Structure formats: C-alpha cells, structure tokens
C-alpha cells in the first residue's frame, strides 16, 4: 500500500505497460525464433495427435457417461455448503481462542478478559470467558443444526438411489419420442 502511494501514478502505468509489452513480445519472440531454426518435415505420423506414444483412438471430444454428471451435480451442492461453514467456523475458532487467552490471563490478572479482535484491546471489544463460551456453544449448535438438515437431504438421495452407479429403471420411457431421444443420445456425442 505504501509503496504504491509513494510511486507516482504515471510511473505505475509506465511499469505496467513496460512489463506487459515485454511479456507479450517474449512469447511471440520465442515462437518466431523457433520457426526459423526447427526443421520442417511434416509426415502423416508426425501430424498425428500425441497420446503418450500409443496409437490414438477416436476423437478427443468424447461424451462422458452421463452418470458422472449426476455425481458432479450432487458434489457441487454438498461442496459449496462449506462456504456457509466458514463464518461460523471463524467465530468458533476466535471464541475458543479468546476463551483460552482469558483463562491464561486469569492466572496473572484479576479481571480475565481477552479480545476477539486482536489489535483492539479496549473496553468495547473485550470478551469475558462466559461470553466466549456462549459464542462457541451457539456457533456449534448452529453448525450442528445446519449440517443435520443437510445430512437428512443426503440420506434421502442415498435412499432414493441417486448415488447408485447401476440404477434400477424405475420410469420406463413412455413415448416413442423418448425412445428415439434415448437412441440419439447413445449415437451422437454431447454438443460442444
């Protein structure tokens, strides 16, 4: 922050432009240099896609099994919930730390206090051990309730069979159109 405010704005832009130009020129310069030096002998074998030395099989853009997709969707939901854990976990960590600090200061001083915010050790942000305990407890209960609800949902999809790899066919295709669609599905790939 200080370094930025001390340098003049024009100098910053000048540096930015300089580094960007050098970077871009370097990339293209290297490619251009290689073009001059490398021998050019294209053969059918050389133009083939490199696949670890093995003979290449089929195009690169194949369709994955759609079942991967379902698993990915479920993963997406259960993974992002960690974002909601984050604030609660932060509070829990800070509260337990504050409580430990308060317990340590209690040995040396008469009034056991600690702060949640480290750099502001004043009256308004001071926290008593009881408050720290309440805070930790509340955040734990909060998280527990939240996670329990999530687990119910998880158990439901498990029971429903959405996680099974080999799935029992529960809904036979009703119309000829659905059959045709399924056939097309097997034949061509996922549009890219």
């Amino acid at each position, binding site marked *: 922050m200080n370094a*930025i405010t001390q340098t003049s704005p024009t100098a*910053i*832009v000048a540096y930015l432009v300089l580094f960007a130009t050098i970077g871009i020129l370097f990339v293209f310069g290297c490619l251009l240099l290689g073009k001059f030096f490398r021998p050019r002998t294209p053969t059918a074998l050389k133009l083939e896609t490199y696949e670890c030395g093995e003979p290449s099989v089929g195009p690169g853009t194949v369709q994955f099994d759609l079942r991967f997709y*379902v698993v990915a969707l479920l993963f*997406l939901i259960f*993974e*992002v919930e960690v974002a909601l854990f984050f604030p609660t976990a932060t509070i829990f960590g800070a509260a337990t730390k504050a409580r430990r600090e308060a317990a340590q200061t209690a040995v040396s001083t008469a009034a056991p206090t600690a702060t949640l915010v480290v750099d502001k050790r004043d009256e308004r942000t001071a926290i008593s051990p009881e408050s720290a305990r309440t805070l930790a407890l509340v955040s734990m209960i909060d998280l527990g309730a939240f996670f329990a609800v999530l687990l119910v949902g998880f158990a439901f999809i498990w029971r429903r069979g959405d996680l099974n790899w080999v799935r029992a066919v529960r809904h036979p295709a009703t119309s000829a*159109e659905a059959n045709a*669609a399924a056939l097309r599905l097997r034949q061509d790939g996922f549009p890219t």
Partner: protein
Amino acid sequence: MSIFCEPVGLSHYLVVSAILFVCGVLCMTTKRNVLGVLMGIELVLNGANLNFMAFGSPAICGTSTLGLDGQLIALFVIVLAAAEAAVALAIALNYYHTHATVDVDRGNELKG
C-alpha cells in the same frame, strides 16, 4: 483516463464488476447453448459478488462500508449461485434426455 493513473480503489472494482456484468448479460442473450447461458449468469453473479466484496471492505471504501454484511452476502451469493446452477444443470440434463440437444433455440414446442 484518470482511472488508469490512480491507485486501485473502489472505482476500479466497480469498473471490473460492471465489465463482468455486461459480459454476462451479453453471454446470456447471445448464446444458444444452455451451458453458455448459465456461464453468463455466473459472470453476472460474480460481478455482484465483487461489488459486495468491494463495498464491504474497509480497506477499499473507508468508513461508509457494508462491513461484514457485504462479505456475508457474498458468501451467500456463492451458495445461492451454486444451488441455482445445480438445479439448472439438472434441468438441462433432463432436457437433453428428452430433446437430445441443449440448444435453447430448439425449444420451440412451446411458442414463446
């Protein structure tokens, strides 16, 4: 061109988020593939998120900030976006099962 000459502040964040928003809206309106449209929506949401983060940071906009509210809303937007994306993708998957395509334009059974 004063924006290029001053230290990074609130306006820079707003410009980036506005660019993200415009890119997202363009992507939403011009793409024919559902996945492309969903990517556009994600861009718009990321723009909103960047706004919330910038407005919520005392380092960026001084005293009149959203504070923790901004950061919390940003967290929730991430989760909401993921939930929405998961549902939309599942619906797209189902659409692919019945139509064997994910082009929104091909959806012409219902006259829009």
